[in-house]
């Protein structure tokens, strides 16, 4: 039973990781806390729903398309709105700006898709995999795999590609990078695009596993907060660690303390972690932990 709980937690954690990595990246590189992150996640979910309903496209096949679309959205969001806000106001004020966008997106989703829950259920949604005593839903395993593959791909991109190197350099030494001829605005927008693309991917994975409705955006934003605070800022590894811990804490609390308490435990952990080690277990991969 404990094994089952552990596995359930890890699978759930994979989703948390993927849903937080974009938030983490934006926070780490730009310092922007994007309160509309959860709304971006949901846009991904609804996109998967629409493609599945209208075109019969399997969510896993739709994933690249959705990520591409979300990338463009994120790029434009940074170049048009966030950039303006961070320049004219403060980073804290940009939090309010993104909150405003979260409200707008949520309202728009209600108008377009109605407030009813939606779910994406391909034929394999009800199948499961068993390993001895442990049974896990197939879609959950698929979501976990998607998370790991995408997080690894992101880590590799950041580490080895020239874009990734530029992003890391810019995050560490914004002015130096600018002096070296890096187009900071472009790099920031690329980061924002990546962030949104991963939010979208998380939305697809979430849509595959559970029903969702517009008010859920708050949930995914808050989860991203907790994951980043636990794991560390700005790195796929931090998001993975934070997400997996959160997932396991979630299922273990439900099992051992009571099904109603995972959220309380999660936020307690968040506050404790902030107090003990504000930059998370793996620290801020860009700016040096405080």
């Amino acid at each position, binding site marked *: 039973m404990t094994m089952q709980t552990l596995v359930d937690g890890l699978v*759930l954690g994979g989703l948390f990781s993927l849903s937080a990595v974009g938030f983490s990246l934006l926070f780490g590189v730009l310092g922007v806390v994007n309160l509309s992150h959860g709304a971006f996640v949901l846009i991904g979910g609804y996109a998967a729903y629409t493609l599945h309903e209208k075109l019969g496209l399997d969510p896993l096949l739709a994933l690249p398309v959705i990520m591409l679309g979300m990338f463009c959205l994120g790029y434009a969001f940074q170049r048009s709105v966030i950039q303006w806000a961070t320049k004219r106001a403060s980073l804290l004020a940009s939090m309010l700006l993104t909150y405003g966008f979260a409200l707008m997106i949520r*309202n728009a989703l*209600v108008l377009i898709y*109605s*407030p009813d829950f939606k779910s994406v259920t391909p034929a394999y949604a*009800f199948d499961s995999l*068993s390993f001895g005593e442990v049974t896990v839903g197939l*879609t959950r395993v698929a979501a976990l795999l998607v998370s790991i593959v995408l997080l690894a791909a992101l880590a590799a991109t950041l580490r080895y590609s020239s874009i990734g190197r530029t992003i890391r350099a810019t995050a560490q030494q914004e002015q130096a990078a600018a002096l070296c001829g890096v187009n900071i605005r472009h790099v920031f927008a690329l980061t924002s695009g990546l962030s949104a693309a991963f939010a979208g991917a998380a939305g697809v994975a979430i849509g595959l596993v559970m*029903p969702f409705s517009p008010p859920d955006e708050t949930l995914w934003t808050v989860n991203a907060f907790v994951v980043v605070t636990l794991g560390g800022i700005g790195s796929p590894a931090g998001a993975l660690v934070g997400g997996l811990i959160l997932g396991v804490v979630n299922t273990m609390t439900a099992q051992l303390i009571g099904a109603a308490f*995972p959220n309380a435990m999660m936020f307690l952990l968040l506050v404790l972690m902030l107090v003990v080690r504000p930059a998370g277990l793996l620290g801020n991969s860009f700016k040096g932990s405080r």
Partner: protein
Amino acid sequence: MKLDRRTVLKSMGAAVALPAIGRGAQAQATETIVIGGSVPLSGRAAETGLNVNNGYLAAQKFFNEQLNGVEIDGKRYKIDVRLFDDASDPARASTLIQRHLDDGVQFFLGSFGSNIVLPTAAIVERAGKPMMQTGGASDQIYTQGYKNIFCMFPRASRQLYNTIEYFKVLQPAPKSIMFAMANDAFSKTLAEGAIAFGKEKGLPINDIVTLPENITDASSLVNQIRSKKPDVLLATTHDQNSLLIARQLISSNVDVPLLYLSLGPQLKSFRDALGGYSEGLYFQQFWDERSPYKDAFFGSAQKFADYYRQHFKRDIAYHTASGAACIVAYVHAMKAANSLDPAKVRDKLATLDVESLYGRIKFTPEGDGDPVHLGSTVGQVLKGTAEVVFPEASRTAAPVFPAPKWAEKRRG
């Protein structure tokens, strides 16, 4: 659907001022009965809020367009339902209800969610105006001594009486029953009322699990079911959570002979999402369009449903019907009182006993729905449709117990 403040005021003026001043001058102009209220159209409760909203509006449309209004004391009136979005914010709801009161609205419709309904009910009660509502069933509302607040549902703790009766007659008798309740006022009262009644009836209620109000993972519940193997799981959860629980039970291949999800399987979208796996699921059934109810205005439950479908795109739900029934109840009471005096209409509401599209409308002295006539029946998904299986008097199909296992459904 947007309301323009000026037209609101104008028609308020028509409704309120005219009866007092000379009637003759504007006799040919159609007068209106303004019914005000709020619904949550944004926030978590928006889904049901929209159903309630559409029920109100469908009835309004029907009365005005099909019946050319209603005749009371020899005069014809159009019904004018004025709603606003309270965004599930009790302070906002109170403020806007006050605006309706100030504008002279005499009759009120309720919002959804007891923490919204109660503060607004207090204001309306104090003003001595009646409120018909279909969204606040928590017991707290009915222990305040309010005289003007009427609900289409029995208070939450009484809603599952039929369900418990059904568990009592199950063959073979269940050896263990597990409850899972979402942690919100309604779901909790619903479950606790049922648990108390069930224990009184000697049912083996062995496990009670409290879930968060919104869940992203039901694996701990699934694991408990796996290890405790209850014969019955009764979950008082909202539909999104119900679907998650069902999906995780299916994909974990954990069977329960009687899986009862209070909210969820009523909805077509829920059954579609589960496909064949929804077969045999139980739920709390308040209303079915095939119910044999006669309605003095719509004709029958079925005719109401047909009318609704002609004019509204959104799927019909029991809250749509109960919302429409609120207006129907008002019209019956107004006709019986032969007056638009809110105090007289209130008195007639209190003694109302009439069959409607939604069922036989009759309230307890505290104002909630009569648990026998307005209580829920036991529903089950059979061959893809939502049937009523208990009590036998209203049965549309015979229950299947134990329900087929997931593995059997998987094979098709």
